[in-house]
């Protein structure tokens, strides 16, 4: 599979996750969201950018429980809960946000 952004094709796996995370740009994330009929706000980008930083530091995408805790620590308790994160990313915060962030599917995510 592949996704086309600005006339360029980017390879993805069968679930739409970017094959090469170094190719990622913000525009690719946006195009993936459009394909899912999702509209990305500043709040979405807060989580997406956080995931990219986490991956950069630890070389893994965090499990949703770990993500929730870490988001709460960084952005406050009103954001560090699953209700808030599932409202932003109804397909599962770790799963969906990781996809737009160009990261592989979180370890242990089915």
């Amino acid at each position, binding site marked *: 599979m592949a996704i086309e952004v600005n006339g360029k094709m980017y390879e993805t796996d069968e679930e739409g996750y970017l094959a090469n995370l170094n190719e990622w740009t913000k525009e690719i994330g946006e195009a993936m969201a459009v394909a899912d009929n999702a509209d990305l706000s500043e709040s979405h980008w807060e989580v997406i950018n956080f995931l990219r930083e986490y991956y950069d*530091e630890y*070389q*893994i995408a965090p*499990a949703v*429980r*770990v993500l929730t805790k*870490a988001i709460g620590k960084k952005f406050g308790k009103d954001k560090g809960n699953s209700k808030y994160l599932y409202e932003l990313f109804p397909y599962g915060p770790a799963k969906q946000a990781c996809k737009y962030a160009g990261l592989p599917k979180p*370890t*242990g995510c089915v």
Partner: protein
Amino acid sequence: MEGGVVKKFLYVNRRAPYGSIYALESLEVVLIGAAFEQDVSLLFVDDGVYQLKKGQDTSGVEMKNFSPTYNALGDYDVNKIYVDQESLEKRNLTTDDLMALTYEDEDDDYAEKPSIRVISRDEVADLMEEQDVVLSF
């Protein structure tokens, strides 16, 4: 797993980090298993102690350097990481050669504490004795 039975799990890591898939597989199983909220400990013996070595560089072996991921274990509430003293000594290593893995203690105002404990062979035996499940990689 509210109300579930909590068992003591020990993951024993005996092999060098690269050259086989064991170390990475073990780490992934630990991270996935963390979701089940069991009482998890990790033990590094023999060449397994190299998995925790600082400054790993995999550019020559074409494998992903997954050593930064050990630093995430604290986030997953895996904070009992035992290293066999004798294995370190045989390889001329000390704790200074290992990554400084830490966790935040929720019961102590989120104070950052070291996760790694170097233990003797006798303590290794005791550690294994008290487990419900021992998984060897």
